[in-house]
């Protein structure tokens, strides 16, 4: 009898097993495709970019190409401070999850900061070149260089003159920014006439291009400025004096922040060094902003006392370095706002940095580890024990 049933069911069992095997193979293939880890597949952005590969050795600090690279970058910093210009920048970020880009109108008057405005602020909703524009108050240009960022670049990277080129129909000198392991971190196209940065490309450690920023329209000279918009007001106060040589808070100021309950690390993963702390007051309490940079990327870590709701409109759950966080809807990790709460502090990280750098920053900051079953039971037992403690 059993044999009879087995013979009848054998075909069905075989069909089900074959279907499950096919599904497993499909899932495996899909995971490979999603991760971009097909055997033999090269990173798309790295294709055709043999010159961006890492080197086994770096030139010596006194090598002429290094000396010239540092000289060109110093001239670029000076040009960013003294040359009047107006233009439109395009900034694009690429990550395995996707890519994004936005346009910026920028103005600069000698001695002042670079003013930036999203290109969709124009009346017709398009950019100055008629290109559908991006929007957003938080869009950040990546071409302006400051003395502080150059100092960080010199510490964390090796600058090297790579040759001549063109960008935006202007002659340029190319300076490579290499990590100390020889891999290419970024390239700058510096205007041969003025020294202004015309273009910047940034690469992750695997050689994949993660960010591009370039002028698509650049007009140099006071007469080209036209109507310069006003600078947005700023409600944040720097902890370190604004006129100090370095805006980085000193040890005493950091200790004072620590006393107030703000734990501000002096350094984060990826050579991100604390370069400034600001604070502001809000109806829901004070907010502290710690600024970190390695000379190429800038990460802002906002801290506010409280807890984060489980869900927020416009945010979604994301997994970053094995940690559950809330992330602003869509967008690549390099430009998302990532938020979580730990130990009574809500952390929000906004960074213009490669995704792996952002993930390392998130992983290094505090997180609650009280999400397990036994930790929850332990908290409950502690709470019950407190009922019988006459001193609690």
């Amino acid at each position, binding site marked *: 009898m059993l044999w009879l049933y087995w013979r009848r069911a054998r075909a069905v069992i075989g069909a089900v097993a074959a279907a499950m095997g096919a599904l497993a193979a499909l899932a495996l293939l899909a995971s490979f495709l999603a991760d971009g880890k097909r055997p033999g597949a090269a990173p798309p952005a790295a294709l055709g970019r043999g010159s961006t590969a890492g080197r086994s050795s770096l030139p010596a600090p006194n090598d002429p190409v290094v000396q010239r690279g540092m000289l060109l970058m110093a001239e670029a910093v000076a040009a960013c401070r003294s040359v009047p210009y107006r233009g439109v920048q395009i900034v694009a970020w690429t990550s395995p999850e996707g890519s994004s*880009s*936005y346009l910026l109108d920028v103005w600069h008057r000698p001695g002042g900061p670079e003013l930036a405005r999203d290109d969709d602020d124009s009346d017709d909703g398009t950019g100055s070149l008629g290109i559908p524009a991006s929007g957003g108050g938080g869009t950040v240009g990546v071409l302006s260089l400051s003395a502080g960022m150059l100092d960080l670049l010199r510490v964390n990277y090796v600058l090297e003159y790579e040759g001549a080129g063109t960008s935006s129909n202007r002659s340029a000198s190319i300076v490579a920014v290499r990590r100390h392991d020889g891999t290419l971190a970024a390239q700058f196209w510096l205007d041969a006439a003025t020294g202004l940065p015309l273009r910047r490309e940034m690469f992750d450690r695997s050689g994949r291009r993660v960010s591009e920023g370039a002028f698509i329209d650049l007009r140099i000279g006071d007469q080209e400025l036209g109507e310069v918009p006003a600078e947005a007001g700023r409600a*944040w106060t720097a902890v370190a004096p604004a006129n100090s040589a370095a805006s980085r808070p000193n040890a005493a100021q950091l200790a004072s922040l620590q006393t107030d309950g703000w734990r501000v690390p002096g350094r984060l993963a990826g050579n991100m060094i604390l370069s400034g702390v600001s604070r502001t007051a809000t109806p829901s309490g004070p907010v502290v902003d710690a600024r970190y940079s390695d000379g190429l990327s800038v990460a802002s870590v906002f801290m506010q006392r409280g807890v984060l709701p489980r869900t927020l409109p416009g945010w979604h759950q994301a997994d970053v370095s094995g940690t559950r966080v809330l992330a602003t809807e869509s967008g690549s990790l390099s430009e998302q706002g990532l938020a979580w709460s730990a130990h009574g502090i809500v952390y929000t990280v906004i960074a213009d940095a490669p995704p792996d750098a952002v993930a390392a920053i998130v992983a290094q900051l505090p997180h609650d580890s009280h999400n397990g079953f036994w930790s929850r039971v332990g908290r409950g037992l502690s709470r019950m024990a407190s009922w019988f403690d006459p001193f609690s």
Partner: protein
Amino acid sequence: MTHLGRWLSALVDGELDAVERDRVLNHIAGCDSCRKEANAMRALKRRLTALGDESGEPAIASRLIELARSEEPVPVGALPWPAPTGIAPARRTADWGSGVLARTWRLAAASAGASLITIGVLAFMLGNGETRPPVPKITPSVDSYLMQHAFDAGQHPAGSTPAASYSPATLGPVQGVVAGHAWSGRPASGKPGHGIARPVQNTSGTAAKPGSRTAAGPAASPQASPSPSSSADGPAGPPVTGRHRG
């Protein structure tokens, strides 16, 4: 009140020897109260004896005896109390004791287990949330954070109005509240509640949702990307060439 005490009951039960019995009977012969008491005790004994005979249903008794014999005998030494002296092999008493002991242990184990489960469930329910004092729920003010991040990156967000009256020297302290979407900087500066960037071109075909700074796509489009290789495909890509040092 009788004068004989327990001697009277011993007489009724027939436990006295001949000498004691004669002495008790002599007293009863001259004492009305003791004689009445002895008669009452004999009558009671007869009634009790009669009751025992009537309730002694043979079938029930035999079944009870068989039931008792079916249980495993327990050694007298295993009992938690010393075996009564003068009682011949107390097998039924031992069996009864072991059963009570087993039931007691089972009851204790069940009670302990139920208590542990109850405490565990209660602790799990109470363990939800932090033990520290309650703190307010915070919604990160992304717009103001993004604006501050622009400052951090070395750029200053610009307003949409010209800076005809712009004078850094006349700028007073900004009293605006940034977080909580209550930005109130100078009227001519900034854009209250700035949105978050939308894509130049979204190759995935899905527009950025409100609240997002950027929109995702599978790859940068030629138009969106300032890639050197795409410079001839659209106006957004500036021509870039590089002559890399060998």
